[in-house]
């Protein structure tokens, strides 16, 4: 078994109002930022998953995203397996 770094990004579905994103965008000119548009606010979750492969780690994170991390009524999610963690797995630790 390996341990994988996973990131789940949760964002509002198209058509769902994003008052936070709109408020941040409106504040940008006052701060001197120009040319920045389409600001949206979401959430990012990082964790590690023990799995036999990156595909399995991704599948388990997808299930977690659907059941808990995102509310499918208003949010969509993207799972990214970013790296296999170098640290030893449970089996190897006992050698």
């Amino acid at each position, binding site marked *: 078994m390996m341990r994988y770094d996973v990131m789940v990004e949760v964002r509002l579905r198209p058509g*769902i*109002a994003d008052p936070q994103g709109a408020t941040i965008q409106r504040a940008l000119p006052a701060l001197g930022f120009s040319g920045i548009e389409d600001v949206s606010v979401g959430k990012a979750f990082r964790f590690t998953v023990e799995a036999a492969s990156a595909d399995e780690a991704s599948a388990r994170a997808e299930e977690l995203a659907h059941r808990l991390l995102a*509310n499918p*009524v208003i949010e969509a999610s993207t799972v990214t397996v970013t790296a296999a963690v170098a640290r030893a797995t449970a089996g190897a630790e006992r050698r």
Partner: protein
Amino acid sequence: MSARVGIVVYPGSNCEHDVAEAVSALGASADLVWHSETRLDAYDGVVVPGGFAHGDYLRPGAIARFSPVTVALEEFARRGGPVLGICNGFQVLTEAGLLPGALQKNRGLTFLCETVDLRVETTRSVLTQAAIPGQILHIPINHFEGNYTCSVATLRELRDQDRVILRYEANPNGSVDDIAGICNVEGNVVGLMPHPERASDPLLGSIDGRVLLEGFLAGAVVRR
């Protein structure tokens, strides 16, 4: 015959005593039910009160959905038991899938604490059965995430099946179609953002919440 009401308490709930006081004043007996409880069959009706269940971490109601009592609540509702979710309780019921849609941040990003006018749209739910369609009720709201939203298909279903039970007269939070409260297909599970228990005594400035709680208690007793 007085109704036995169970009031669910999650870590972070904070309106349970207000609800207990209000339903007791209307002749019911009220028990607080800690969220680790796995049975609700001792009760004629169950209320999920307002507050911040599990700190509202992740999303309001998202963690509460996995509390043992919520699983018991699903069974209680499936058997036709009257279930009332108020404010955070409404958010819990949508997260648990007992009611459709979701509650997102208020349009305008402000926490709202004010008394609003609600219009009774139908008497087919356990909460509104004692009211009169078109009746205006003066009841407080107290929320940051009360902006009801759902898919176009769900909204059509809610309208076609007469499941929008209460609408705001002046939409305070951006809720789609001015929705303040809805019910399930059978009418035994209801959720609303306003707090009827805070409009249940003249000292509170309004007694308009009574007609809703009375309907709920009557529906609870009928099942005995």
